């Protein structure tokens, strides 16, 4: 196979793909509160994330410094990222058919990638940051996180459970081996996600496209590739000779991305050096040429530019529509205080949902409108926010979820819990319960109970503990909703609130004080 020839670019690709997968597996709690800082590295070094963040949030984040460095490197070296680093590109190279098809697909040609990139960037400027939806690394990560990794975990788990059904306790003899694999390779919990099929389908579509044309996604669609190509065309490194030689023309076959017009298209050259390696006459070299005249026009054309701007605007306004009944369900990760600011910064990369300790975070499908597609939502009935856990903030590449020390994170307000007296057992059935109070992690208890004497449904008067929420110190972690033993709708639910300022120590003291004065 051509791909197995270990050129420098190939070795680099393998290493970065291995690194990507390693970091992917590392994006999980493995006994240490502080997760490896590099797990979100691919996103922090992603120029598309950087540019859309700058345009939408209109502020700077130190987290994205690696992306600035990559932009500078691209300016200097060209679009090397796609041929040397990008894990999706490497995956495509691995899956490309033996007989490569280099003839461009007519329906994908032209300025299509700019028609994708520019509206995305202009929409970001108009406060709608959707770039992550088409970012290649995000597509890969979401496909793995929401579909393939749970699938792997489920397959392993089902097999393991089946083994127990077959041989019972004897399974323990092979347990150490399974636990070792589980500890280092498998997900701790196999979570099923909404949008899993869609995430996988997007990834598979890109892979299928590869069968029609080599690197079709990279050449005609990828907005990150378009951005890098645009930056890279200013690079002083140039191929010599720029075009095909009259007596050979082998480059056309060797090159995975360009040369369909007979000359090297610099914004599509991914510097894989395949042509240099394969040239039978050793004629080809890449060397710096210090000339300030770019070989191609700097802008893709006025029409595309204006069209992109209009497209961005058209995208940005209607996408903000949101069902009114959706808003009371939008619980965001801890530390997110303002919904609008969050939407401008969130990459929708899936890192927080991958790392979430209790699998409380899920990608929004319809709940947050078009604008919020793939943004993380906390669904307490499926998982709650663990009191001492700060992982989502640690892995967020843009700081949309702030990385807070644990003492601060504990005071962040996700929402407030409210009892539903039609479901909550002490109210509805006049029986004891207060499982919610038991699980409330706030040291002073944001859920408390008072004893009341009242006739039960059978008419017998008895003492029942009725719970109530101390709103001032409730952080909305959702464990109460999760553990509520009512099997229909939980007897307590967490609702989002506008004022998500952290619980202060003073509020805590005051709340406890007030309660003690109540005449129960």
């Amino acid at each position, binding site marked *: 196979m051509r791909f197995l020839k270990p050129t420098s670019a190939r070795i680099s690709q393998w290493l970065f793909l291995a690194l990507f997968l390693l970091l992917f597996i590392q994006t999980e709690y493995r006994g240490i509160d502080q997760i490896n800082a590099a797990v979100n590295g691919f996103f922090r070094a992603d120029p598309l994330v950087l540019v859309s963040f700058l345009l939408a949030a209109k502020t700077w984040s130190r987290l994205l410094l690696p992306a600035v460095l990559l932009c500078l490197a691209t300016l200097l070296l060209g679009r090397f990222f796609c041929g040397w680093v990008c894990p999706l590109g490497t995956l495509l190279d691995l899956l490309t058919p033996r007989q490569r098809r280099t003839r461009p697909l007519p329906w994908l040609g032209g300025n299509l990638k700019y028609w994708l990139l520019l509206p995305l960037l202009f929409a970001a400027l108009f406060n709608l940051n959707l770039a992550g939806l088409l970012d290649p690394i995000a597509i890969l990560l979401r496909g793995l996180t929401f579909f393939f990794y749970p699938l792997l975990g489920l397959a392993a788990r089902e097999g393991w459970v089946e083994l*127990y059904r077959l041989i019972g306790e004897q399974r323990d003899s092979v347990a150490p081996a399974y636990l070792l694999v589980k500890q280092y390779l498998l997900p701790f919990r196999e979570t099923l996600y909404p949008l899993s099929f869609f995430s996988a389908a997007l990834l598979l579509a890109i892979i299928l496209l590869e069968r029609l044309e080599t690197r079709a996604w990279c050449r005609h669609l990828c907005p990150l590739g378009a951005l890098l190509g645009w930056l890279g065309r200013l690079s002083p490194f140039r191929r010599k000779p720029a075009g095909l030689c009259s007596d050979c023309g082998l480059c056309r076959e060797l090159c995975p991305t360009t040369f369909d017009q007979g000359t090297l298209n610099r914004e599509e050259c991914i510097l894989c050096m395949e042509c240099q390696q394969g040239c039978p006459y050793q004629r080809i070299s890449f060397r710096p040429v210090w000339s300030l005249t770019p070989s191609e026009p700097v802008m893709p054309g006025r029409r595309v530019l204006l069209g992109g701007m209009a497209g961005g605007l058209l995208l940005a306004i209607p996408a903000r529509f949101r069902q009114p009944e959706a808003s009371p369900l939008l619980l965001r990760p801890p530390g997110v205080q303002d919904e609008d600011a969050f939407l401008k910064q969130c990459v929708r990369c899936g890192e927080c949902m991958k790392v979430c300790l209790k699998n409380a975070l899920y990608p929004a499908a319809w709940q947050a409108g078009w604008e919020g597609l793939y943004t993380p939502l906390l669904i307490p009935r499926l998982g709650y926010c663990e009191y001492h856990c700060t992982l989502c903030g640690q892995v967020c590449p843009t700081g949309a979820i702030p990385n807070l020390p644990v003492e601060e994170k504990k005071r962040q307000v996700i929402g407030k819990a409210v009892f539903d007296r039609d479901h909550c057992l002490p109210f509805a059935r006049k*029986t*004891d319960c207060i499982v919610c*109070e*038991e699980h409330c992690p*706030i040291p002073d208890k944001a859920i408390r109970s008072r004893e009341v004497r009242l006739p039960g449904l059978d008419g017998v008067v008895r003492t029942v*503990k009725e719970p109530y929420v101390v709103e001032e110190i409730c952080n909305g972690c959702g464990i109460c909703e999760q553990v509520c033993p009512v099997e229909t709708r939980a007897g307590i639910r967490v609702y989002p609130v506008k004022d998500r300022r952290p619980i202060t120590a003073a509020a805590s003291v005051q709340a406890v004080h007030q309660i003690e004065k109540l005449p129960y």
Partner: protein
Amino acid sequence: MDRRTFLKGSAAAALLAPVVAQELLAAAGPVVAVAEGADYQAITRRAINGVGGMGRYVRPGATVVVKPNIGWDRTPEQAANSHPAVVKAVVEECLAAGAKKVKVFDYTCNDPRRCYMNSGIEQALKGLKKVECKQIEMERFRMTPLNGQFLKEWELYDEALAADVFINLPVAKHHGLSRLTLGLKNIMGVMGGNRGFTHRNLATALADVNSRLKSHLTVIDATRILTAHGPQGGNLADVKVLNTVIASADIVAADAYATTLFGLKPADIAVTVAAHKRGLGEMDLDRIRVVRV
């Protein structure tokens, strides 16, 4: 008496002494051994020796389950979980008595990884041979007939059911619903399913489960107790350091005595009363022999 007779006599006495002691113990109601001191491993051993030594409960070759409370993502000083030093001492005593395997687990309330880690228990048992400290695997819960007064059947953990010896190792602490959680309540950690359901009639439910799954030995960790905002706590102001470990073969007696550490009477705790009525043990402090060791 010549020397030979004396030696014979003392040898016979030494051999018979445990038997005699056992006879005495049986006659005078359950024994609760209470040990105090700052060395938690040492007091745990003393408390166990005070109720006849681990050899009385664990025969060589036995499979033992030690069930501490590892329910919460809290540190040892916060008194929400059994103290790792106490757990380690109990496990080591089991091994010294010749146990084939000692299994330590709890069905946690918070994330199991964090609970096992931050309780310090996983770390304390690391490297001990023949000791397993594994997280719960859901497929191992088995629907078990209880024929109780509230629970007719419930899912119980197969390793607890299959063990030769079940050692109950709770931490003594406050609980919002049952007022205190001690040995009888600690059994919840081997129950699967919708555990919150049992809160509707907690005392009866726990008596039902304890009737099916008997604790051969109960060791209550009262090295530090949580006096309010249980069962999780989190505020060190609610923690009282007592440096005490309690052991008894009678789970109700152990719970009854531990209740007094909180300034309460055994009759104040509905679970204790329900278990006593069910014939699971003695709760009358006058009939319990408290041995301070």
